[in-house]
């Protein structure tokens, strides 16, 4: 479904992605891990053409995202949900209006239908009572839930999570990850989760891809990753300060 082929991206003289290749099958939920600043979020942005590669291709269902015409890109983006690290909720709108926003702007649904759909999604993420609140009144965990509801209301086939649990306490992290897992199972979505939450993510993804020094060093099941003799993976997974990865 998603195929990344030999992707290169640099800024000025700094090469961030150096020949990244990755394949995500339909219905598969994979985690993308790696050191902070190694280019995980950058890679995710290429999948929806928020950024274009210097070299290489991103194919979704065989179509090259980097070169497809604008109309085709918009159609593709309507099939992809993207949960930003910040949530990217609109500050001036209530929770209800934030979730209703894509429906009001991009569909011909009536207000009654929109209300029903929005309340269903808010119920799914456990925030039915927060519909009148504004983003500034929400906790970090609630923000991520609203962002997920706004993404799910568009019924995407692919969902991309960009560090959705960063900065949250362990209990909220687990509850958010469980929510992602249940959404993935219920809707059979294809997903990529960029996260640092090890080992919490092991239970919800089928595979883990590790990005190191601009390329993917391993795409394995969580069990294989845990038992990997590769010193880079071993250092990262076990959080060892000493090893081949230089701590910046």
């Amino acid at each position, binding site marked *: 479904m998603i195929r990344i082929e030999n992707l290169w991206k640099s800024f000025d003289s700094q090469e961030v992605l150096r020949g990244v290749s990755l394949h995500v099958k339909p219905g598969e939920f994979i985690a993308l891990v790696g050191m902070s600043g190694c280019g995980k979020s950058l890679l995710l942005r290429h999948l929806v053409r928020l950024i274009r590669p210097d070299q290489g291709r991103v194919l979704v269902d065989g179509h090259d995202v980097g070169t497809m015409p604008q109309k085709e890109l918009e159609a593709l983006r309507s099939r992809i949900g993207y949960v930003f690290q910040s949530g*990217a909720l609109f500050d001036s709108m209530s929770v209800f209006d934030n979730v209703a926003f894509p429906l009001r702007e991009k569909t011909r649904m009536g207000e009654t239908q929109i209300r029903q759909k929005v309340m269903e999604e808010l119920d799914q993420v456990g925030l039915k009572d927060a519909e009148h609140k504004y983003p500034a009144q929400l906790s970090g965990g609630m923000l991520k839930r609203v962002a997920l509801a706004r993404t799910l209301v568009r019924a995407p086939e692919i969902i991309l999570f960009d560090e959705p649990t960063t900065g949250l306490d362990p209990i909220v992290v687990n509850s958010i990850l469980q929510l992602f897992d249940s959404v993935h199972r219920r809707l059979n979505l294809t997903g990529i989760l960029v996260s640092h939450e090890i080992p919490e993510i092991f239970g919800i993804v089928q595979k883990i891809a590790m990005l190191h020094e601009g390329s993917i060093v391993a795409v394995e099941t969580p069990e294989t990753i845990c038992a990997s003799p590769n010193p880079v993976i071993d250092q990262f997974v076990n959080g060892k300060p000493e090893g081949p990865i230089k701590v910046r």
Partner: protein
Amino acid sequence: MKIIQWITAWGSWLVERLSGLGKFALFLCAAVVYSLTPPIKTDRIIKQLWFIGWKSLPVISLTAIFTGMVLALQGHPTLRRVGSEAFLGPLVALSLIRELGPVLSALMVTGRAGSSITAEIGIMRTNDQIDALHLMGLNPLRYLVTPNLLAMVIAMPLLAAVFDVIAIFGGYLLGVRVLGLNAGAYFGEMNNYVVVRDILNGVYKSMSFGIIIAWVCCFKGYYSRFGAEGVSAATTQAVVNASVLVLVWDYLLTSFIS
């Protein structure tokens, strides 16, 4: 070798500046095209009209009343010296309608609403909200820039008109009530000297200033650098650049009209 390095650095700087200007021009072209083609975001335009127009009224009124009073205070002694105190009305009215009304209201709106527009769009950029709009299949220019552009074009002439009326009243308060000029002379001579063309020129100026303010402030916010420092720098640049552009454009337009 040093000369080649110098030429390369200078060339890169020039190319960067020219491409920046091109981007700036294309931004306006896109905003104008989206302003003239459906779908028009009427609710957003009304919201921005309220914010830019209605909420600027207090500061515009306050600036206007003192501007009118100062004009009368400065104009009266000079006119008295040549025995033409009766022309205080036309002096105040023409200065305001042709120049000061549109220019000062534009500068006040730049400081109050323009800076806020830049900061809002800049924060939306920083918080990924603009990218979120892209991913929802919405055009951020149509959603964020066009309503501001249209609201500015509608609000600016109205604010300048309010400015003119209040400032003329300020001139009346000082000239007639304080300095003892005849009220009939103040308004009567004004009626004789101010023509429709003066008013229309003021309207055209205000509309063009509205385009400049929306253009510069939205552009600076849209391409703001990330973080609080980036948004802060973008806001400062927006206010300074828009104010200078308003004054330069005022000179060019006045030369052309004259």
